[in-house]
């Protein structure tokens, strides 16, 4: 059984937002909500400034607080390690939205259920990559199976120092970040 994960090489992100657009189109995300976003940050003491582009999405945490708090089992872990939502079981209590430290969820106001990035589960089942990965022009987003030692994501995590977001929250995310700041050429 695979354990899906995403590796984001921040040095290759140009903040073109193509991932955001592709995600919205692929998953019919309501206009006012986003399943993925790109943060642009600059920090430091002038003139030594550092800039960072950071794509954020559901981290499909191994220790997912949204799954723990869900009272009906609508939010659940799949065998492939992804966190999914059974829309037929969701009561729209919004506990999962409050529980997510990454604010990765939203309520689909037309239908009422909680929604978020599914790693494009429907595309995975068809043998395709998630829409954001497929469209990423800089090759910043990479996706694969951590249980396969030869997969691209396994190799990248072996060869690069990596970090996860809000590690202290203890959620054990499955979205990893490498090369936080672009390397000097």
């Amino acid at each position: 059984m695979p354990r899906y994960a995403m590796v984001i090489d921040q040095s290759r992100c140009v903040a073109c937002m193509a991932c955001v657009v592709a995600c919205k189109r692929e998953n019919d995300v309501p206009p006012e909500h986003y399943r993925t976003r790109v943060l642009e940050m600059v920090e430091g003491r002038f003139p030594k400034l550092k800039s960072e582009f950071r794509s954020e999405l559901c981290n499909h945490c191994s220790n997912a607080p949204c799954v723990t708090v869900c009272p009906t089992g609508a939010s659940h872990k799949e065998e492939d390690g992804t966190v999914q939502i059974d829309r037929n079981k969701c009561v729209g209590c919004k506990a999962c939205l409050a529980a997510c430290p990454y604010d990765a969820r939203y309520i689909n106001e037309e239908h009422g259920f909680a929604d978020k990035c599914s790693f494009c589960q429907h595309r995975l089942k068809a043998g395709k990559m998630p829409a954001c990965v497929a469209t990423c022009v800089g090759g910043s987003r990479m996706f694969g199976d951590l249980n396969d030692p030869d997969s691209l994501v396994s190799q990248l995590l072996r060869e690069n120092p990596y970090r996860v977001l809000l590690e202290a929250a203890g959620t054990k995310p499955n979205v990893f970040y490498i090369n936080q700041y672009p390397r000097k050429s």
Partner: protein
Amino acid sequence: MELTITGVNTITYPYLHIWDWRVAVYLFLGGLTGGLMCMSAIANLRPGKVVARDQPCCWRIPLLAPIILSVGMFFLFLDLEVKKNMFWFYLTFKPLSPMSWGSWLLVLIYPPMILYAFAAVPDDFKAGMKPGLLKTWSDRMRPHLLLLARINFVLGILLAIYTGILLSTFVARPLWNSSILPVLFLVSGMSTGTALMIMMAKRDEVKLFFTKVDIWLIFSEIVVLLLLFYGHYTSDAAHRASIMPFFNASHQFFPYFLSIVALGIFLPLAIVLKFLEVKGEHSQHLGASGRFLMHASAVLVLIGGFIIRFALVYAGQLSKFSGLS
């Protein structure tokens, strides 16, 4: 020059606002019901039965408690986004989900509450009732009044503390994520329940008895509230940032600042009024002014409990694990 910019795309950046006044009202009414269950149980269990002779405390409060809880649950129902899927609450039990525990508790609590209300119907009222189901059940439950009162006391504590546990388990919301919060909601629920008992009681000695109880509860509430803030202030950056809206009088956070100012006035004022009542000469009946002061302090306590729920529900959603942004 230190330059720290978080250049966030404001269109895509999320802003958490999920629970509004409906949830705050539910939390308040849930705590109030818990308090009423405990205090009416005390009224019936108290040695000497001085309090139990007060009919409103004896049986109208047990009758009122399930009605207030139902109103609270109605507001909770209004907050659900997919109401047609509500039955899934009762086809599932998730032992690690406080909301799952709560949904079952809210249903299982009704039979003991209603049976208690039946058992507490006084004999002189029953004498005027026509023979029927209500009278039969009331007669059947009467011998179990004290047992039902004890059960209601325990369930009342569980109900009042649950409303705080529900919020305190969210690690992502530092303001709520404190083990002090359930204690605060418990004490506040007991205090508001006592305040309503004071307002509904007819006999002066009963009003005075619950006034004395409420003084201790309000003291405890203030101490626990201060401990909550102190605990957050001495904790990590995210917890410290989470209480800052209460100490910031700027336009953005003014309602939270105002809530602390109001609590800082209402709760101590309620204590002062209650002390005046208790220290007064009550060998005769309470005068109109004495009753007014009692009811005024009870109203202050109820408003205080309401403010605590509202302020914490709204301010908790501003707080983030990574700090305010």
